[in-house]
C-alpha cells in the first residue's frame, strides 16, 4: 500500500528532515510513527499525501509514485485517503453536516447518497444527531471526531493522522485511538503519527520510531 524507498527530504535552507527512509506498509496494516518533535513524522505523512515532494527516493502509494504525480492528479490521490490533523480544520460558517459532506460534494456524489453517508460517518464517531450544530459549539474532542468523520466519509482505503490527539486529554485520546483501530478492523490501512508514546506503547501495533530524520526502531510491542 505504502512504500518509501531511500527517501530523503530537505526543506529549502535547512538540514535534512528525512535521511534515506525505507518503510513498507501493507494493505490493511495499522502502524504508528513516533519520535520527538522535529523527528520527521509530519514530513513522512506529507510526502505520502503529496503535500510535500522530494527529489530523493520514491514514495509509492498503491503503486503510484507520488513524487512524480502530475499536480492535476493529486486531488484524485487524496480522494483515496482520509487525512486527520491535530487541528481538525472545521469550517465554522456551516454546520457539522456540511463539514462532513465536503469530500462527497467534491466527488460529485448525489445528494441522497450524501445524506446517508454523512449520517453513517457521524454514527461511527458517535455524533449522530448533532448534524445541524455549528462546529464551534462542540468540545475539542467532539471537533476532532467531526474531523475524523470527514476523513472517512468517502470510504478511503488509507487513513493518515498527524498528532490527532495532540489537543486531547488521555481519556479522549484513547477513544480516538479506539476509533482508528475500528477502522483498521474493517480493512482501512491506518498510519498515525504521534509523539505520545504512552498512549500507544501498550497497543499491539507496529511502531516506527524516528529520530532526527532516521528510523531508529521498527517493530511490534510484545
Amino acid at each position, binding site marked *: 500500500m505504502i512504500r518509501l524507498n531511500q527517501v530523503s527530504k530537505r526543506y529549502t535552507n535547512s538540514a535534512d528532515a528525512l535521511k534515506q527512509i525505507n518503510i513498507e506498509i501493507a494493505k490493511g496494516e495499522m502502524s504508528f510513527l513516533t519520535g520527538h518533535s522535529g523527528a520527521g513524522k509530519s514530513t513522512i505523512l*506529507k510526502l505520502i499525501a503529496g503535500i510535500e515532494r522530494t527529489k530523493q527516493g520514491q514514495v509509492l502509494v498503491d503503486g503510484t509514485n507520488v513524487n512524480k504525480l502530475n499536480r492535476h492528479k493529486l*486531488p484524485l490521490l487524496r480522494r483515496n485517503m482520509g487525512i486527520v490533523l491535530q487541528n481538525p480544520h472545521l469550517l465554522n460558517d456551516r454546520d457539522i453536516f456540511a463539514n462532513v459532506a*465536503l469530500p462527497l*460534494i467534491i466527488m460529485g456524489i448525489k445528494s441522497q447518497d450524501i445524506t446517508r453517508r454523512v449520517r*453513517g460517518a457521524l454514527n461511527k464517531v458517535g455524533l449522530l444527531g448533532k448534524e445541524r450544530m455549528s462546529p464551534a459549539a462542540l468540545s475539542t474532542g467532539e471537533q476532532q471526531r467531526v474531523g475524523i468523520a*470527514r476523513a472517512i466519509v468517502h*470510504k478511503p*482505503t488509507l487513513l493518515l493522522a498527524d498528532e490527532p490527539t495532540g489537543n486531547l486529554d488521555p481519556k479522549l485520546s484513547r477513544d480516538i485511538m479506539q476509533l482508528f483501530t475500528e477502522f483498521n478492523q474493517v480493512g482501512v490501512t491506518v498510519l498515525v503519527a504521534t509523539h505520545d508514546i504512552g498512549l500507544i506503547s501498550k497497543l499491539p501495533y507496529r511502531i516506527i520510531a524516528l529520530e532526527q530524520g532516521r528510523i531508529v526502531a521498527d517493530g511490534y510491542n510484545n
Partner: protein
Amino acid sequence: MLSKQVATNMTSTNVRMTKKNLATASLGAQHLYAFKTCWQHLRKTVFASLLTVAVIAIVLALPMGIFGLVSNLQQVSQHWQKGTQLSLYLNTNVSEQQVTELLSTLKQNPYIANLHYISPKQGLQQFQQQSKIKNILQVLKHNPLPGVIEIWPNASIHSAEKIHQLQQNLSTLPNVQSIQLDMQWIKRLYSILHLGDSIVFIFGILFALAVLLIVSNTIKLATQKRVEEITVMRLVGATNAFVRRPFLYTGITFGLLAGFAAWVIVNTAFSYLQSSVSQLADLYSSSFTLQPLAVSQLVLLMLIGALLGFIGSWFAVNRELRKVSFDS
C-alpha cells in the same frame, strides 16, 4: 461504536476514483455547490459586496459615458456631413456650352454624390423670391449673379483632409472662380471627435485595469478570509477548479451587477443632461437630442464587467491557492 453492518459496507463499496469517474461525477451538484457557496457568501457580506459593485460600476461608467457622448457627437457630425456642401462659383462670362461640359465632368467624379446647377437667371429668381424685391433687373440693369454649382460629396469623403482635397481638385477646373466651404469648422469638429475616440480608448484601458485591480483585490480579501475553507477543500481532494469556482462566480456576479449599474448611471446622467443639450440645440435650430446608451450596450457593459470580474477573481484565487499550506 462501529456497527458490523456499516463495517462490511465500508470495505465492499471502496470505489477507486479514476479519471473517468472524476469527469462523469455529477457536475451539476458541483456547480450547485459553487452557486450556493457564492450566494451564501454574498448574503453574508451584502454591504461590502454592494460597495464593491458600486466602485466597479463608477469605474465602468466613466469611459462608457465618454463613449456615449462621443458617439452622440459623431451622430451630429454625420448630419453635418450630409449637409456638407461645396458651392462652385463660376466665372460670369461662361457660355452654356462650357457649363454643360463642366457639369458632365463633375458627374463623372466618383467623389461627388449629387450636384445641382443654379444658373444666374434661376439665382436671380430665388433672390427675388426671398427678398421680395420686384423688378430687380430694372434697378441693377443686368444680372450680377454668377452661375453656381452645388456639390454634395460622396459618403466616402468623411475626413477633413479628403474634403479639402476634393476642394483643391475642383478649384483647378476651368471657369471655376471660387469654391466656398467652411473648412475650419469641419476640421475642428473632426479633431474633437478624433480626440474623443482617443480619450475613450486610453481611459477605457486605464479603467479596465482599475476594475481588474479592484475586483482582484476584493476577491483577494474574500479569499484571505476563507483560507481555512480553501485549505480544507484541498485536503479532502478538491481540484483547483473546484476551489476556484465559487470565487469566480462571485467575481462574475460583481461584474454583471456593476455593468448593469454603470449603464443606469450613464443613462441617468444623460437624461439629466438632456434639457441643457436641447437648449443648446435650439440655439443652433437643431432638433438634436442626446441618445441614451442602447440595450445592446447594456449587454456589452455586462459582458465586459463579467469578463473583468472573472479575470480579477482568477488571479486573486490563484495567488491564494499557491500560498495555502497544511500545517496543523
